[in-house]
């Protein structure tokens, strides 16, 4: 099956095409586009005045203010730019889990493909990074429609492998993508909680708009095992033979505490966070995600 069909189911494409991805925070583009830019330019949306300093373009002096107040200020306008959307896809071993129709990695790949399609459709730039404890593959930011093929190809060639270490990976990412943009992290955040949260914080401190799509399998959320089972760690050598039902309650409590910590961390760093089950339809999830972002952005703009 070609990667385009594998990661872009027709029904998903159909629904995604009606959506629009917007940066919630300020991003640095390289084209004039639909997203707010940190640069002040020719746009119509006034942002602020600032004191004139020598060297400023006199065309930007607000002569009306000089006439009324006898001081030179420069008018600054918000410049719209294009979106630089980076998809950070976790390809660690834990993402290979999945008892359902697809693994978490496959699910993340579908989401990434859909987002890429969406971004490119908006004439924005999209790139991808596959990582585990280091970056395994990288597709640079492009706006070309053909660029989707590169992203899909990198997803298809990837396979879940090593342990997760988001902190070191994201430091690398920050250096790779110095300009602020939209960072969409697709990960289960399992294996190295602290480094994961620190990595998100690193991204956010670098000024990126961060969206965390926390993908977990139904089994991981519900722990439905009943028979005596020997659990063997995907990213560790730990193993445990037990009656799962006896540990289910404690497991769910521990998981809930983990999710709560992740939520708190994301909230603290003003990162968007969404917990996703692999049983949820990817297009539905994407629709929900983008709708909520749209609303948030509108509220943000109104403020």
């Amino acid at each position, binding site marked *: 099956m070609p990667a385009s069909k594998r990661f872009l189911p027709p029904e998903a494409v159909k629904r995604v095409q009606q959506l629009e991805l917007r940066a919630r925070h300020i991003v640095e583009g390289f084209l004039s586009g639909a997203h707010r830019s940190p640069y002040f330019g020719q746009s119509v949306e006034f942002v602020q005045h600032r004191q004139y300093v020598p060297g400023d373009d006199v065309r930007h002096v607000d002569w009306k203010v000089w006439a009324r107040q006898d001081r030179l200020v420069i008018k600054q306008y918000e410049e719209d730019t294009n979106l630089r959307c980076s998809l950070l896809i976790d390809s660690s071993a834990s993402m290979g889990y999945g008892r359902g129709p697809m693994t978490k990695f496959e699910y993340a790949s579908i989401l990434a493909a859909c987002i890429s399609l969406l971004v490119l459709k908006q004439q924005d730039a999209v790139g991808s990074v596959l990582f585990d404890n280091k970056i395994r593959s990288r597709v640079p930011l492009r706006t070309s429609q053909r660029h989707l093929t590169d992203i899909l190809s990198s997803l298809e060639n990837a396979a879940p492998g090593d342990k997760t270490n988001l902190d070191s990976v994201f430091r690398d990412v920050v250096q790779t993508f110095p300009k602020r943009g939209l960072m969409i992290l697709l990960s289960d955040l399992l294996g190295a909680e602290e480094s994961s949260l620190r990595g998100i914080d690193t991204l956010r401190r670098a000024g990126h708009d961060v969206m965390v799509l926390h993908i977990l399998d139904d089994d991981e959320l519900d722990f439905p095992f009943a028979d005596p089972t020997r*659990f063997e760690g995907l*990213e560790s050598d730990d193993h445990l033979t037990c009656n799962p039902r006896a540990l289910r309650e404690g497991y769910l409590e521990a998981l809930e505490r983990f999710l709560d910590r992740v939520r708190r961390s994301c909230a603290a760093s003003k990162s968007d966070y969404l917990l996703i089950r692999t049983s949820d339809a990817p297009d539905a999830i994407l629709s929900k995600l983008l709708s909520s972002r749209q609303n948030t952005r509108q509220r943000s703009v109104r403020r």
Partner: protein
Amino acid sequence: MQFLYQPLTWGFLLVTVPILIHLINLLRHRKQKWAAMDFLLESYRRNRRWVMLKQWLLLAARMLAMLLLVAMLAKWISSSRWLGMLGGQATHHYLLLDDSYSMAASDADDTAYASALRAVNALVRSIAAQPGQNQLTLLRLSRATLATRAAGDEARIDAAADLLAQSVPQDPGKLLDRLSATEPTALQLSPEDALELIIPLIVDNTAEQAHVYLLSDLRRNEFGEPEVLRNKLRALVDDSAELHLIDCSGESAANLSLVSVEPEQEVWAAGVPLMVRFQVRNHSSQMARNVVAKVRSISYAAGATEPRTDSPYSGEVLDLPPVVIEQIEPGETVTRQVQVIFGTAGQHAVEVTLPDDSLATDNRRWSVIGIRASQRVLLVDGEVDRSNAFFFQTVLAPDARLRTGMTSETVDASAVRDMPAETLAGFDTIALLDVPRLDRQAVSKIEDFSRGGGGVLIVCGRNTNLQFVNQELFREGQGFFPVQLQQIVENSPAVDDQGPPQVAATEHPILGPLRQLSVSPFSLLQIRQQLLPTADSLDRTGLELIATGPLGSPLLIDRGLGDGRVVTLLTGLTNDWSNWAQDPTFVVVALRTLGYLGSFRRAPTSAPIGSPLEMVVSGTTVLPEAEVLLPAKREGSPRVRLLRQVAVDPNSSDIARLELSIDLADMDRDLIDSLLRPGIYETWMINSQGEKLLQNSAHNVAAAEGNLDRVSHTELEQKLAGIPLNIRTADAISGSGLHSPEASHSMLLMACLAGLLLIEQLLAYSASYHAPRPTGAHA
């Protein structure tokens, strides 16, 4: 710890099932790759102790549940009082049923045994209706006695008991069907063997309450002097057993019992008249009049008789003239004789039957008489002219037409020394006639001959050497000569014939019948010289006087030596010693003495009921299969034909042996019953020439059991004073049964099990072993 159903205790192995399941689960777990190991391990670390504790508790609960379940099913019997509350103390009912032949005594239309069976029926039904754990052991006294006879102290009740029920069903009809078909045996029985069998069980099983029911007819034979019985009952009482004596009979009944049928100890030879003596005892308080005893002879002509199962005997039956006994006083035993002649050699039999009375079992007896062609007498004469032997030869063969049943051979004293022991054993009697000396080897052979059952007749005389006799033949009582000789005395001749006879007979069987004559037959007998024994040697035990001489001196002496007898005449047959050889009584004395002496190597004419059968054939090869014809159950019904393998002597193929004894473990009940019947048991073999070889055995009842006199309840209570004994009649038991309800605690055990199962479920739920409910919408 004991259980009612011991085989079910194997179920305790089920205790290992939860462990096995646990271990199997450990082995058969599936493997699951898992990403969120941190949370799982965290949950495990937090809950490890509780999870382990719950699992162990759950495992223990399941094992305990198994234990309780098996204990409940196997009917745990607790020895302690409080544990007994859980397990329920079992009650073991021992029913000892007297099936001696006195139980067949009919009272009106009923027998004591029938009453006993009804009482057993009522008892078992009452026991079945009682709550709690009730075990039942039903043991007939005959089976207990047979088991004790066969195995002695090793006798086991499980081989003897008719019924060993670990529980009594509500409808015990099937259990009792088998017992209902039984009948009294022909044995004389006492409850002692049965008590001896159950006492160890009761002593060992302290956990169960023992109730012993003895169903008997309380005859005086067994209960008149119950010292042994008292001791055994005391042992039961000491072990907290509850004793019930159930009287199954009514009143004492009149009964005539045939005590014995025995041929006289004389010559048993073909064509020679034989006197058969039988005794009848009147076991009642009233005189019996005109008792007619029917006598039948059954001839088994050797080689001319075929085994027949359709008639009571394979031999030819001849009704002899009945013997009428005019009267028999209460408690008196009368003896009558009947003359029987068997024309051929063989294993013949005589049957005597009394008329029917309240107890038929003891009205008939049999005697098997092994008739030979003739008996052989070896005459060893010390006279050179064999004059002494002449007298005996004349007596034994007076005429060609007259048969005395004995033949003789005459030899010198020296011939005995050279005669092989086997040849000597072919004679029935050795007569040493005035032998002056005997070689030591000859003395030894004669002693061995006598010790083996042969008879020795010693006639003294002028050649008798006192010193030789005392030193070689008497040998301080170790030899075969009965007395030590002191001197030869000469008796003064009788003045006239009117004086008392010099010779007088005693009650000894040889001359005892002559005492009944009104006039002494010895009136003409003159003892001129005789040997006088020392007084000391006369005082020795074992000597019996047959006849006394002048002045009461011992004249004819009988003494036992081994299995045989030695009869010594302390006078001679020559004229200078006595005129006995010319006296007519000499014929009688000689024939009876030789017949008497030749009778001690004979097989017994009868045996008690249940005795083992044995037939040994030597000198010829027999076919491997023999048959035994057992007495019929009832007159007119066919006899049981039993085939048995003959055992050949490993050392000699010419010696074959057939043995048949009652084996409670391996024989079925019908066969055992057949082997306990009185009557003639015919054992047939066939030799290699096709000739049929027969050995008859007569099995007779013990006559004492025919005494139907009973002890009253009051008398029995006095004799068994100090022993708590509940005496009731069989009719009372049949009417009302038992009334001793017991509380049942077995439900408590079940309740404990139910409680434990509930706890197990709670533990299982707590340990999350129950499948979770299907979850609804995902979070």
